[in-house]
């Protein structure tokens, strides 16, 4: 089946083309069939490839499709790398992707036909790009998908392009991604000039020969790329704004798949990162800081999607923490589980928003549990998963990361734990405000409140199952030795000869049990506190006051800070260049030459006084001058 690998990205591409070109002619049903069908088909093929990879004799293979750039010393093929890591991501992308496509058929049904088709075209294009990203056998191919998903994200965030704020959000996302992309590109150039290739195989083979400085540089640049795409400090501010897009988009792109591209990339190139401990520290610290910062902001947000967005940023921070401490499997594991529960959360939020007629403020909700049973149930499961309570999936993945962090440095664990507590708090604050208590919306909203159609609830249900059970693929050794299926599966890719879990191996089992137990207990208490408190007490509408809580509500003023130190100075500089330097200095010089000629003309013409006498006088003086030069001046 892996010979058919090229079909996996091509099917969504075909869907994109069909829907995109036929957007004026196709009916919504046709669009839905094409949109969902192609991704589903891709999922099917992925699945079959997945089973292939399970067989013991499976070896990673590179499927070369064509030359992309082959000129001079640069050789970049279009080729796809099929190994366990990419196939795992294939499954997540196409699997979660098809669910979200299905969900969208209902969620977006109100759109006009061309817009509906446009939406699915974008979505298919996104899936295509994402697949290229994970399948690419080299950094350049990956970069193609990398930029492609950025583009789709841009297009989808600004899907409702009549709203200027959405467009700004879309633009912000694209530009921030571009900043990261520049780092990525520079890393690619560095590799090309240092190793002569940007294919994974070639780079990883030659990497050990390179000096630590080179590797640190390359990996840091790659990490810059990752911070852009995966919304880490300092480039995270676009992600909350990206919630302007339709909710399924947020679920697919800004939670489940695209934003994890950075994690995928680092996991993919872990060979390089392993050789660059400085970078690893940077990654871990950045991840941790992001996790805490985003979690703290999420504490005080009132927009249902904003909370989830900051939560995503925070979870991504965890994944980077995992990568930084060398727990690549843990990070990938968390990517997977996070894909499940975060997609579920977003879709659930979408369902709520759909029912509430595009109301997103949780202060205007409440008491939806009874009105929307399926949504409520699945949402609750997801909350439990993200809070990290056993036996839900989030527990296992988060635990794996935290254990590895502890092994690296206790501080990592301590702060990581703090973040986990905050996560539990804001998630259940969200849950309680939305589903518990009394309904606080308008009467009209109340009248129309209903459970979503099957196309929306089915994905919810499937994802709920996965959110619960997804974690069982990676049960830590303490609990059940040899049950870390995921670790075993990924071991050939993510760990060299050392074997997986080198970080975990340092902890003795007793410590682990104790830590697990305490953390679960604390989280449980936080959950209970948040649940009980926010089922009754609703935050006021009043704008944020001063102090810490105000600062949190205003998101630590990061946007304002960027505006002050980057945007505004740049804009001022540009105005200065355009208004002063360009006009008066550069153009002024050019025009000055012309003007000085004209000035010279005005002055020189005065010699032409019109009087013969003066003409002759000048002539004679010049004659005398000539004589002096000629007869007496000996150069």
């Amino acid at each position, binding site marked *: 089946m892996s010979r058919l690998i090229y079909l996996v990205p091509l099917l969504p591409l075909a869907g994109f083309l069909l829907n995109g070109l036929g957007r004026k002619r196709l009916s919504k049903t046709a669009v839905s069939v094409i949109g969902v069908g192609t991704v589903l088909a891709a999922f099917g093929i992925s699945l079959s490839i997945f089973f292939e990879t399970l067989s013991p004799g499976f070896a990673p293979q590179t499927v070369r499709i064509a030359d992309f750039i082959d000129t001079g010393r640069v050789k970049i093929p279009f080729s796809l790398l099929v190994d366990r890591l990419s196939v795992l991501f294939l499954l997540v992308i196409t699997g979660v992707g098809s669910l979200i496509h299905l969900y969208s058929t209902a969620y977006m049904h109100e759109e006009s036909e061309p817009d509906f088709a446009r939406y699915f075209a974008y979505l298919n294009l996104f899936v295509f790009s994402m697949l290229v990203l994970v399948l690419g056998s080299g950094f350049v191919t990956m970069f193609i998908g990398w930029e492609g998903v950025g583009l789709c994200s841009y297009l989808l965030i600004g899907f409702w392009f009549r709203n200027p704020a959405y467009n700004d959000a879309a633009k912000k996302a694209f530009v921030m991604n571009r900043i990261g992309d520049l780092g990525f590109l520079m890393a690619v150039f560095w590799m090309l000039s240092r190793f002569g290739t940007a294919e994974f195989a070639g780079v990883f083979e030659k990497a050990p020969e390179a000096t630590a400085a080179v590797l640190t540089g390359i990996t840091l640049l790659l990490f810059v790329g990752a911070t852009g795409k995966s919304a880490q400090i300092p480039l995270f501010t676009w992600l909350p704004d990206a919630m302007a897009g339709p909710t399924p988009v947020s679920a697919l792109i800004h939670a489940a798949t695209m934003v994890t591209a950075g994690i995928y990339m680092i996991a993919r190139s872990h060979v390089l990162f392993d050789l660059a401990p400085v970078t690893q520290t940077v990654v871990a610290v950045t991840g941790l800081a992001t996790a805490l910062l985003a979690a703290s902001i999420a504490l005080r947000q009132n927009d249902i999607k904003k909370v989830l967005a900051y939560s995503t940023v925070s979870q991504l921070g965890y994944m980077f923490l995992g990568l930084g401490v060398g727990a690549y499997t843990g990070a990938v594991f968390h990517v997977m589980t996070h894909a499940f529960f975060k997609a579920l959360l977003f879709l659930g939020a979408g369902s709520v928003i759909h029912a509430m007629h595009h109301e997103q403020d949780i202060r205007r909700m409440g008491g939806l549990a009874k009105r929307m049973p399926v949504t409520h149930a699945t949402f609750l499961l997801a909350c439990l998963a993200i809070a990290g309570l056993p036996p839900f999936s989030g527990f296992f993945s988060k635990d794996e990361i935290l254990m590895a962090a502890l092994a690296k440095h206790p501080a990592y664990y301590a702060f990581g734990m703090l973040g986990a507590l905050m996560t539990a708090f804001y998630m259940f604050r969200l849950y309680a405000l939305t589903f518990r208590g009394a309904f606080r919306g308008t009467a009209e909203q109340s009248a129309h409140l209903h459970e979503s159609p099957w196309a929306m609830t089915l994905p919810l249900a499937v994802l709920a199952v996965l959110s619960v059970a997804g974690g069982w693929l990676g049960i830590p050794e303490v609990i059940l030795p040899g049950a870390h299926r995921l670790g075993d599966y990924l071991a050939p890719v993510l760990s060299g000869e050392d074997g997986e879990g080198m970080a975990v191996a340092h902890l003795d089992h007793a410590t682990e049990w104790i830590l697990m137990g305490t953390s679960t207990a604390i989280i449980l208490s936080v959950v209970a506190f948040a649940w009980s408190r926010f089922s009754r007490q609703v935050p006021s509408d009043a704008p944020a006051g001063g102090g810490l809580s105000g600062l949190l509500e205003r998101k630590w003023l990061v946007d304002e800070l960027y505006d002050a130190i980057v945007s505004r100075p740049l804009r001022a500089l540009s105005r200065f260049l355009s208004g002063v330097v360009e006009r008066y200095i550069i153009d002024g010089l050019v025009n000055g030459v012309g003007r000085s000629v004209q000035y010279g*003309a005005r002055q020189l013409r005065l010699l*032409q006084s019109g009087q*013969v006498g003066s*003409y002759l006088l000048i002539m004679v003086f010049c*004659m005398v001058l000539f*004589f002096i030069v*000629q007869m007496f001046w000996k150069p």
Partner: protein
Amino acid sequence: MNAILLSALWGVVMMFTGLASPHARLHGRMAVVGMALLVVAAWLDLAGISPFGITGGGMLSYGPYESVFIILMAGCALLYLLLSVHVMADGGTGTSDPLALIFFVMTGICIIAGFRSLLMLFLGIEIVSIPLYILSASDKRNLRSNEAALKYFLMGAFSTGVMLMGVTLLYGTHGSFYLEALNIGEEALSPLATAGIVLLLVSMAFKVSAAPFHFWTPDVYDGTPTVFTSFMATIVKGAAFFAFLRLFQDGFGRLHEHWRLLMAFLTAATLIIGNVTAVFQQSVKRMLAYSSIAQAGFMMLALFALNQTARTGIVLYAVSYSLATIGVFAVLARMKDHSFEAFNGMAGRQPLLALLLTVFLLSLAGIPLTAGFFAKYQMIAATLEEGRMVWLAILALLCAVVGVYYYFRVIQAMYFRTGGDAQPEVSKGTRAVLVVTALAVLALGIHPDWLLRFLSY
């Protein structure tokens, strides 16, 4: 020699034609016939057929180079006459007299094209100058014409005095007027001879209107009736340059090192003053006067370089400059208003005329595919070949850029501006001649070889 005789004779013929018939048309036709005959006569010189067998006692000599030059100048004069006789006829006065003077000027041109003796040079230049004084005065009631004539005359006579003093000092050293006798190399470098060379340089620079001896040019060209300005600014100036080059190459060529610096100064001053001052002008006619100074600056490069390229190049330059300038003046002479604004929107009313004018102006500006480009090319190439003072070539090129500025003002007025009321009445015949002139400009711009090969016999 045929050419000298014929032109002198035809001048007399023109005088008598004026007595015999008052019809201006007839005068015109006679003049055209005469000029055509002059071309033929010069051609016979080139072919070595000289029925009268007069030699100037060695004071005149005509090789192919000189003969070709005379043919070309007579050819230009023929075009000039074809374009101008109507305008002269409309002037009111009998045209025979000015036409006779033009033939006398041609005699002088033939003399200075072939002189081997300073005596002949002096005589030739006077034969050229005196009729020109008269032509510039020919619009008697017009104070501008008066002024032009007076200025031209006084300054011209003054420069004659200077020139004669130079000739005398050289004679004092060498005891001869012959160029061969002068050109004997370093031993000729006595103070007396040097002083003589400087004085000759000054007076010749005056004749070709090189700065800072150019002051007469704008005023005289401006004041003189336009038909005659056209003649003075083109054919006469070309011949003056030819004589200038001949004098300094054959007469003082071996002392090149010693006067090169002065020539460089003259060249640079002429280029700058001509080009820069032209920028300011509000009247096309006066702009063309300054442009003639600017073009003189380019021709001065030939004198600076003084090599084979310069020798052939100056003829090409004289021809291409003459053709283009004659063309522009032919239109200008038919317009009442000489300001730039008068040309506004001319392309709409007279598309062909505007196109032809554009060709001429492009040639003057030195744009490729016109004769003017190769003319300038030859001058720059000659300078660079000389290898020293390369900055002079660069300066010349930058001045060419300034030149584009004022020539294109006319093009801009014609094509890109509206208004203006210039309706020059141009007959079909004149148009045809203008087309021929423009074609000649283009032909020389595409294949200057044709001409240059003649010159390098």
